[in-house]
């Protein structure tokens, strides 16, 4: 483990900025929200800021991404198809453990199934990741219930844990090791490992009651969701609460459903774009000719929570699909974020 004094964070970021576009948490001046986005001004990086409003998935799966460009001339019967690859290397600095686990879920889903998603891979292989331990949980957090925080375990190049006037630095890759050496960071000493463990343990013990109480119930909910033993009334209630706005999907670190459309440009060619989509939208499963196998909203809600917690989906992610960031609960106007859904399932089991 290494030691990064606070006043050297800037040097680290500057170094990264030489080869990467730097992404990190910063406070938005207008809304006051912490956002995770590309830092045009590096000094805006705020490692002490609360968990960002949005997850970092747009760095890998942009909300709107051109994947192909083609031009078809009917006159000459000529088609030119061009694969768009303007993917730049990115450094994600100050990722919370939940968000890093979100990326690991996406990795296993996009790269580890029957097919490799070439477009995702382009983004992924050019990533440098620095995670940041949550030395205290934020009010919305329940990563202790989903085994994804408050500290990162794997997947980072470097991992930071704030300890007094600086950061304990864990190295997770050769790339990370090189950077540490280039910056000339000193070893953190023999007590560093214990210190980090102590900081993480303190963080775990200060989670809100709601998170700690939910801990066992998340796995019970997983059981129920996997076996299908949840009464239709529960889904109907959840369906009735849903506004079908899709906000939960858009702020979820592991939601990755996308739509693909061909957009004709005025100057001639057509762009094939992929955009974020959400299973809460009615048009999500609607086929040409209007047949919609999943028309009722509760059928669609049920699918989302199946994706987040069922064992079948966990097999694709090699962990639960929910990383406990609490963003869905924060944005949902219908009050059916994941922790509440777990509560409804709990009430059904206990008859509260």
């Amino acid at each position, binding site marked *: 483990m290494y030691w990064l004094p606070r006043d050297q964070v800037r040097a680290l970021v500057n170094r990264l900025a030489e080869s990467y576009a730097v992404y990190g948490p910063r406070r938005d001046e207008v809304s006051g929200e912490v956002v995770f986005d590309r830092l045009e001004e590096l000094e805006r990086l705020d490692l002490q800021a609360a968990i960002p409003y949005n997850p970092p998935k747009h760095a890998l799966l942009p909300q709107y991404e051109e994947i192909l460009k083609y031009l078809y001339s009917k006159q000459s019967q000529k088609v030119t198809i061009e694969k768009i690859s303007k993917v730049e290397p990115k450094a994600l600095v100050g990722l919370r453990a939940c968000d890093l686990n979100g990326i690991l879920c996406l990795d296993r889903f996009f790269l580890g199934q029957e097919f490799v998603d070439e477009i995702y891979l382009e983004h992924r292989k050019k990533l440098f990741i620095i995670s940041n331990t949550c030395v205290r949980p934020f009010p919305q957090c329940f990563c202790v219930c989903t085994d994804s925080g408050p500290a990162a375990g794997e997947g980072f190049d470097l991992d930071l844990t704030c300890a007094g006037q600086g950061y304990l630095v864990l190295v997770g890759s050769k790339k990370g090791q090189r950077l540490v050496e280039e910056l000339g960071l000193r070893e953190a000493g023999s007590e560093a490992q214990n210190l980090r463990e102590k900081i993480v343990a303190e963080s775990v013990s200060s989670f809100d009651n709601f998170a700690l109480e939910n801990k066992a119930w998340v796995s019970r909910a997983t059981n129920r969701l996997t076996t299908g033993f949840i009464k239709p009334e529960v889904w109907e209630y959840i369906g009735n609460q849903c506004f079908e706005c899709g906000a939960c999907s858009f702020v979820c670190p592991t939601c990755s459903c996308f*739509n693909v459309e*061909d957009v004709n440009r005025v100057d001639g060619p057509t762009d094939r774009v992929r955009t974020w989509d959400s299973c809460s939208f009615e048009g999500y*499963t609607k*086929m040409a000719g209007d047949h919609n*196998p999943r028309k009722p909203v509760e059928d669609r809600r049920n*699918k989302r929570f199946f994706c987040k917690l069922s064992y079948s989906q966990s097999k694709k992610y090699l962990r639960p699909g929910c990383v406990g960031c609490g963003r869905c609960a924060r944005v949902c106007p219908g009050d059916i974020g994941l922790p509440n859904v777990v509560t409804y399932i709990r009430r059904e089991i206990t008859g509260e």
Partner: protein
Amino acid sequence: MDNQLVPIVTVPEVATVVDIREEIADVRTFYFTFDRPEIERAFRIRSGQFIMCTVFGAGEFAVSLPFSPENDRKHISVRKVGKVTAALHELQPGDKIGIRGPFGNGFPFEEIKGKNVIYVAGGIGLIPLRSSIVHVLQHRPDFGRMILVYGARSSRDLMYKDSIREWQATRDFETHFTIDRPEPGWTGQVGFVNQLVAGLNLPAENTVAFVCGPPVMFNAVIKELKLKGIKEQDIYSTLERHMKCGIGKCQHCAIGRTLVCVDGPVYTYRQIKTLGEQI
């Protein structure tokens, strides 16, 4: 051979529409060849698979493949039903389309050798079954009885009449037809496909059934087939879903814990029952 199937995943391969055939109202068959000779040579499918077809300037849609993996002209048969298929119907011979795929699991072939094969189709549900029918016919001695039970709204809505005539001309191919309402000159049955199935003397032992048609027809037919004694794991169907990628990533085609594009589109009825969703 199957292991060497390398699907076209990201960038569509350009193909030329070489011939267009009017099948029934709003359904046309488009014969195509790939522009690059090496793709034309290497493109292999399993019956029951599907492709993603690009109509340049309009978009991409998933479509089942009606041709046999062996010695059959490459084509798709498409009903004009939405924006992209309407644009496809505008095409003339010589125009270009884009192809990705083939994707999906496909109908069993080796596993059903030696068995009786029943095909039950409703309307354009015959399109995805055609591939398997032709393939099995090409290996006729390896199979038991072959029976096609086919129903449509009217005699004008029966697909692939020429192909059916050819199949009937081969040895040992039983056919039974029905249309919804009586018509002058119609000598087949009148009624729904499930009623036709109910009245037939079908084998049940050592028999598999392939069913494809609209959801209402599907459920009614399954009921009759089960009454005949055909096991749920021996009834196959091919499902249709809204699809965007074909490679298991966009997740639009999720049914239960499966994705139609990679785990399907061919499912046994036993699997369909456990998915817990409408088909």
